[in-house]
């Protein structure tokens, strides 16, 4: 056990975490040059394409240290985006130390600090590492100063490297061995292993990723999940050496996987403790920091007959994404679907893409919403995250919405434009903090609903990518809320209803109407698209009808050809939703959703 080190790399997005992991893997000789591809731990297509890490990944790196001993360094990769801090939390619970990676040119950013706090909460050894020192724009001295003043860490403890160029890798590996403590725990004690991840393998069933804290587990053991007392017989245990590698046993301090014939995905709970059935431990290991979904949206299959497939896909997906929650939902416009909770908008996008790619389903999402709180006249309090459940306005005593504290880092030159954006987003109680020459930290208290509505993209665009952003949810505050409905030819399209602040109702409704106008093809008659609060119309657009479409000649030889054309159109029309006698293509729903996320 003294030759095991469990560690993570934590960093702000784009600070080079995946590249450093690549170097470690190459250094350990786990892959040869020929088989190597960049960001080797990011094995989801979507991670590679977006250049981000979404899922935690574990890999065991064999290392021969300068003290002459052989070590196993278990690297647990972590995501960098604000939405995925729950993944970071899960990874850190399995570690004794972290590398805190900081870009030499960009310096300390919002997620650097957020991740540092998570590591501190877990009492981990922290090794600051300055990356990208080869860059022309690198300012190592300034970053060392930030490590001292902004992070409160010992500036002399930091290492310098260029993961891209392979500079300083050996020094980091040595520091891991020397500075990160070996895992504690007793291999002879009753088994206590923490489930930190799980995924579904079509051939083997559920693959449980765990960190053993005490005891030993081997094939043939009967294990028990502490949360539901379910028992399973262990079929195989092993370690992660890029791919799964079977081994005899997993003992205290080790990280690895367990196959135990767990067929039902929902029986595995991330954060749960595994023990042995005949010799259980006293109590569960401390679970993870709990993350609550803050953004809600409904997912529907584009083809109604795909509903069952979607149900199965979400169940399997959920196994791999502990923060994702969902329940059944239905819409008059879009049919049977699921109401889902997400940690943020990026999380929502990732779920959408992964479900579509990994399960080959076409899905559509309703307009995202936060969870509102209403106090009714009879004194009862209800939470509403689905516009379909908006209470009768006459019964509402008071409406409240969740507020956040947004922390924004940026070069000073963008301050004016960012403040203007925050004011527009109903930001208040601003605080400005000069971090150093030319760099500022700005905090605002603002409604979460404003942040999920195109805030992030606009902030990034205003600061030309130099700004970074993080937020924490504060509390509920009173707000003038209204339910905006969208009507097509007088009929309500329930999937497009939104709960918004009174002041935003008109612009939001108008934007939705305009988007629909662009996407709904012209029909035989005039189509009115309206935004309404109750019976009050607050926005309106119309689609003028087409007047001429008939083909000029239609005789013996034209009939089949014409019919085939019409059949094709008819088929296309079948894939549309008909509301108020108007055929609405899926793209129209997506366009309205897009107006909420894109700019």
């Amino acid at each position, binding site marked *: 056990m003294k030759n095991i080190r469990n560690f993570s790399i934590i960093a702000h997005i784009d600070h080079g975490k995946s590249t450093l992991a690549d170097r470690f893997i190459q250094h350990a000789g786990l892959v040869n040059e020929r088989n190597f591809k960049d960001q080797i731990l990011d094995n989801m297509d979507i991670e590679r394409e977006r250049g981000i890490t979404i899922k935690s990944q574990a890999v065991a790196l064999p290392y021969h240290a300068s003290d002459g001993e052989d070590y196993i360094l278990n690297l647990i990769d972590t995501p960098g985006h604000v939405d995925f801090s729950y993944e970071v939390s899960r990874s850190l619970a399995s570690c004794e130390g972290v590398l805190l990676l900081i870009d030499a040119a960009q310096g300390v950013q919002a997620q650097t600090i957020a991740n540092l706090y998570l590591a501190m909460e877990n009492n981990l050894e922290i090794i600051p590492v300055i990356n990208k020192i080869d860059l022309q724009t690198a300012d190592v001295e300034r970053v060392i100063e930030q490590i001292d003043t902004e992070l409160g860490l010992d500036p002399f403890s930091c290492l310098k490297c260029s993961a891209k160029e392979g500079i300083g890798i050996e020094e980091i590996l040595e520091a891991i061995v020397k500075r990160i403590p070996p895992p504690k725990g007793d291999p002879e004690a009753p088994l206590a292993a923490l489930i930190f991840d799980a995924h579904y393998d079509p051939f083997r069933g559920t693959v449980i990723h765990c960190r053993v804290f005490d005891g030993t587990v081997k094939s043939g053991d009967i294990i028990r999940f502490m949360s539901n007392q379910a028992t399973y017989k262990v079929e195989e245990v092993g370690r992660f050496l890029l791919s799964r590698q079977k081994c005899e046993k997993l003992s205290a301090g080790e990280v690895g996987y367990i196959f135990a014939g767990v067929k039902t995905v929902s029986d595995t709970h991330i954060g749960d403790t595994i023990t042995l059935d005949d010799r259980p431990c006293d109590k569960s290991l401390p679970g993870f920091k709990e993350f609550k979904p803050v953004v809600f949206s409904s997912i529907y299959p584009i083809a109604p007959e795909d509903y069952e497939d979607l149900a199965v896909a979400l169940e399997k997906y959920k196994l791999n994404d502990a923060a994702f929650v969902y329940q059944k939902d239905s819409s008059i416009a879009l049919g049977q679907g699921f109401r889902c909770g997400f940690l943020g908008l990026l999380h929502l996008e990732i779920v959408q893409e992964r479900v579509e790619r990994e399960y080959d389903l076409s899905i559509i999402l309703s307009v995202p919403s936060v969870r509102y709180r209403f106090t009714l006249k009879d004194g009862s309090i209800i939470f509403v995250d689905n516009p379909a459940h908006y209470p009768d306005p006459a019964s509402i005593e008071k409406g409240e919405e969740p507020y956040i504290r947004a922390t924004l880092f940026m070069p000073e030159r963008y301050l004016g434009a960012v403040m203007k954006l925050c004011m527009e987003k109903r930001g208040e109680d601003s605080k400005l903090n000069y971090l150093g020459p030319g760099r500022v930290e700005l905090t605002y208290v603002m409604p979460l609903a404003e942040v999920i509505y195109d805030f992030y993209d606009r902030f990034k665009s205003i600061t030309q990518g130099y700004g970074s952003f993080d937020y924490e949810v504060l509390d509920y505050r009173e707000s003038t809320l209204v339910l905006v409905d969208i009507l097509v030819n007088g009929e309500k399209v329930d999937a497009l209803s939104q709960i918004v602040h009174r002041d935003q109702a008109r612009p939001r409704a108008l934007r939705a109407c305009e988007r629909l106008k662009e996407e709904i093809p012209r029909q035989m008659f005039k189509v009115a698209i309206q935004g309404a609060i109750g019976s009050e119309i607050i926005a309106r657009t119309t689609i003028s009808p087409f007047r001429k479409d*008939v*083909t000029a000649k239609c005789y013996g*030889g034209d*009939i*089949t050809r014409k019919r085939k054309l019409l059949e094709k159109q008819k088929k296309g029309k079948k894939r549309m939703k008909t509301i108020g006698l108007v055929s609405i293509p899926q793209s129209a729903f997506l366009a309205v959703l897009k107006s909420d996320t894109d700019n």
Partner: protein
Amino acid sequence: MDSRTPGLYIHIPFCLSKCHYCDFYSSTSISAIPDFLGALFKEIKMVGGRFNSFDTVYIGGGTPSLLSPRELENILASVRENFHLISDPEITIETNPADLNRSFLGSIRGSGINRINVGVQSFDENVLGFLGRRHSVKQAFSAVEASRKAGFDKVGLDLIYGVPDQDIDSWLNTLRQALVLSPEHISCYQLTLEPKTPLGRRYRAGELTVPGEKLQYQFFMKTSEFLEDAGYIHYEVSNFARKEEHASRHNQKYWDHSPFLGLGPSAHSFLWNRRWWNYRSIDRYLASINAGKLPVEETETLSMEQLRLEALYLGLRTKKGIFLRGFKNRYHYDLLTEKKKILGRLEEEGFISVEDGCLHPTKTGLAIADSLSLI
């Protein structure tokens, strides 16, 4: 059961020159005419039995007026020999004005052809040049006059509108000239740029601008108003008749799912729920017939749903519309009940009317008949 009498179509696949807009099948190798006729006579014999009697014959093309009166007479003789033509059949021929002289017209009238369609297309020399026609405006006038003198009392003119850069006034001028000839029948086709034609290629290359939808609609409505004011009946999207009896009996068969037999290359046939068509190639047509086989390239069997869709879009092209009880009996679908809501809305919008058990398109309805059929 459908008891309507079938119609016979004969395709003459030859032209002296190809018009720039036309995508009907034809060849300019007129030396192949004798071989073709030989094969056609064989086809008539081979097919006999499946169809026995017809009440219309339509000789189209191509340019049937390229044939000699003798050749046309032989075709009709062969038809009469192998099929039963019921009394007073409608026998139509499509012609090019350049081919029509007194003796030709007199002879074909004598062989029983009683309806003549003259491919005038326009009374504007510029338009004729643009379309690649091989006749002049003057020839069109004299062709119609000669037809009258030869005893044709059913003369039809084919016209084209919506030509690039044409405005409504210049089109109405063509219509005015047409009325001078008091034709019994006028077909007014909006120019369609078919992909495999010279005009289609020019359009794809961006050389031509065609009227937008709004202008197309104006052309359509103005044409209808103008000819109705002159006493014509707008009985199908593109067809006008001076009196009810002047409407094309033969073409009506296409629009009400009556059976028809097509002979010659590329000709289509329809019976009950089957449609088949001949090779769109003189060579393959000849080869097949000379090998003793019917020159059928493909056959399709239509499902009830396909028949229903066809009946809808074809029926809605015609003024008389769809007889609802007949539709229900033949296609097992009660339009009035199944589509109550949308039909109500379309009636409100003035696109259709339901009268005497029929679903009629209005004039604005005719203009969007294709979409109406997708309800």
